[in-house]
């Protein structure tokens, strides 16, 4: 059974969500819902199953600016689902304190662009809590959810992808889903994981991505990449909304006879090196794509690791198709983004190297 996505054949801006062929898991029944509804379901289940789970952040009470927290306050009460004042540093620190005392703190940072005041708390406190207390305390119950990524008109401060900053912090996990079904399973796994996790949600997909999502409680494994599509000529690695761009590129380049293997990394740190390595050993070529600026982006880590592990097998340098090294622009967004055409050019250049 193939999972269908809304918007097949309709492009909005330069993006469109289309079908993925599931390779790994058996089909599951479910109703077609979009990303924010899937996340909403995950949060409902998380709060249901753990009486010491809390959801808080700016504007979450009425449902949040992206409607991810609809209905939670009414159902679980304002003692468990509440608004915080506008202070990201305070929200993160407060969440760490809650988690350190054994609760599940699910904090929302309204846009990933605003996570920087919280960066200090996350990096210096959350990531190091278990380490420096000698395992007496930990903030494993901490999950920070934040919408990230381009949305077409966001400009400087509503479109950033800060995942690379957090990938550089030992002690933290970073997880990014690509679709509603993945999001629900991954979010529940993150909430229940015994390590602090930063969960970035691709805001472009909140309404656009629609998929059949099972209504029951299920989790997807962390630190396991998923091979979405099998291929033999080149491996493409991405995460989040960028996967739909990569998928389109795969489809188009298939007409020229190039067969692409598409991998969704899902967990950026600790990332699944084995799956990617196995794939590159098969194909001999790698292309990584993400929206964040290319220099110092997470693609650099993947590229370096794979070069170390598969140096003799590689037939071409690892290609990185990423955002440009500029602040996220407003009107130039189409030029800045790693679009399908850029990916196509790179695939061809790599294959013909």
């Amino acid at each position, binding site marked *: 059974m193939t999972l269908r996505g809304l918007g097949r054949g309709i492009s909005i801006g330069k993006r469109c969500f289309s079908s993925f062929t599931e390779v790994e898991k058996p089909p599951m029944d479910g109703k077609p819902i979009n990303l924010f509804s899937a996340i909403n379901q995950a949060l409902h289940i998380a709060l249901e199953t753990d009486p010491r789970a809390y959801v808080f952040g*700016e*504007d979450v*009470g*009425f449902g949040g*600016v992206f409607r991810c927290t609809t209905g939670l306050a009414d159902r679980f009460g304002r003692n468990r689902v509440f*608004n*915080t*004042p*506008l*202070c990201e*540093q*305070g929200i993160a620190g407060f969440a760490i304190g809650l988690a350190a005392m054994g609760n599940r703190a699910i904090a929302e940072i309204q846009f990933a*662009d*605003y996570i920087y*005041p919280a960066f200090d708390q996350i990096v210096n406190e959350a990531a190091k809590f278990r380490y420096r207390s000698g395992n007496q305390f930990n903030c494993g119950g901490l999950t920070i959810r934040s919408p990230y990524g381009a949305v077409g*008109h*966001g*400009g*400087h*401060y*509503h479109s950033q992808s800060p995942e690379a900053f957090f990938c550089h912090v030992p002690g933290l996990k970073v997880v990014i889903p690509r679709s509603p079904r993945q999001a629900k399973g991954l979010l529940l796994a993150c909430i229940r994981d015994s390590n602090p996790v930063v969960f970035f949600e691709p805001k472009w997909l909140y309404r656009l991505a629609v998929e059949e999502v099972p209504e029951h409680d299920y989790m997807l494994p962390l630190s396991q990449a998923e091979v979405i599509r099998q291929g033999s000529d080149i491996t493409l690695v991405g995460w989040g909304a960028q996967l739909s761009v990569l998928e389109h590129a795969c489809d188009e380049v298939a007409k020229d006879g190039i067969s692409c293997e598409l991998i969704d990394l899902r967990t950026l740190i600790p990332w699944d090196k084995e799956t990617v390595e196995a794939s590159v050993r098969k194909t001999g070529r790698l*292309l990584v794509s993400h929206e964040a600026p*290319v*220099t110092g982006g997470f693609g650099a880590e993947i590229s370096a690791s794979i070069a170390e592990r598969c140096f003799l097998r590689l037939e071409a340098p690892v*290609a*990185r*198709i990423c955002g*440009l*090294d*500029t*602040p996220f*622009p*407003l*009107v*130039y967004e189409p*030029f*800045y983004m*790693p679009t399908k*055409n*850029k*990916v196509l*050019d*790179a695939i061809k*250049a790599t294959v013909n190297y």
Partner: protein
Amino acid sequence: MSAFSAVKSLSTPTITTRSTPSSNPKPSFPFPFPSPASAGAGSLRHSAAIRLNSSSPSPLRAVSSHVLSDEQRVTSPSNHDKALVTRREALDLYEDMALGRSFEDMCAQMYYRGKMFGFVHLYNGQEAVSTGFIRLLQPGDAVVSTYRDHVHALSKGVPARAVMAELFGKTTGCCRGQGGSMHMFSAPHNFLGGFAFIGEGIPVATGAAFSSRYRHEVLKEASPSGGLDVTLAFFGDGTCNNGQFFECLNMAQLWKLPIVFVVENNLWAIGMSHLRATSDPVIWKKGPAFGMPGVPVDGMDVLKVREVAKEAIERARSGEGPTLVECETYRFRGHSLADPDELRKPDEKAHYTARDPILALKKYILEHDLASESELKGIEKKVDDVIEDAVEFADASPFPPRSQLLENVFADPKGFGVGPDGKYRCEDPKFTEGTAQV
């Protein structure tokens, strides 16, 4: 019903006073938040300012030597001693507020027609604060704003054309189309932005104020204003729960910086009510906690705002240090053009719509014979023409060239945006390829 009526009366804060020859020493009294019928907001010298909508026979007056200037007043014997502003000042205020309102309404139209995009936050209803403060500034004074910055920019003197073109993303905009709605900057007008992030502008304003004091006292540069160049920092009620706000109150008072912190308390931070998000919702009280005066004012009344602003700016200019001014105001529209605005109660909205600052000033002007109805209509027409011209200009302007994308990342363009052959990298035919090195 005004949300502020829920706040209990407070004892008078200990604030420093400044005596001038013309001040009326009055006993201090509590500062409950003003509703139209109650006592007006206080000035720094504990005397109540004129109430715009009042019908009381002998209103207490905030006597200030600046008001009783030797400028000409309209000679109407019965009203001669009642008007707080001269005719010229009143018309300037009216025109500025009308410009702000018309501009924002045009923004909404253009947005729904798809000419501008992104996140746009409109200022309707809050014009009295912008006009009341910024029209008192000298050219050397600086203004730091938030994402709701179009009207602050217009009041500061940035041409409507430049702002509209920036909103459309055109290269003739004040930031060359780079920033959009939330990032208006203008060096010639000392308008330091435009910040999408709440609270980010306050430390920037604090730094600008420090620079002003340093230039004046250490480098001995005289300012044409005759004192220190003042910086105004505008921000909202939600920001007052943010760490940066408190850090800057401390720094500004510690170093006695020429800055005025202006809180535009419109009671809502997107969907979070100020009263439910703040342990002590009375913001101006937080000023004295840091050693600076805190003053509340009715932000729907431009003349009251102006009175308080005058004193605060004078304080800063003469080197006495910062002031925290809390303006009770309201935004008539939602948080942004994408906000359905479902959470605010209709009677709250109706209460504030009835206190529309522009209508109030119009009534004041007509009552005090400062101008005729037809003159005011003439001003409105002039404003409409300016706005239409701005839209036409913005429409006709070109979008920025692609090369502009890579400009201004660093100071040295060759270090980044220009390739070794001297051309912009985006003109490199390999640019669309993943192999183009940036």
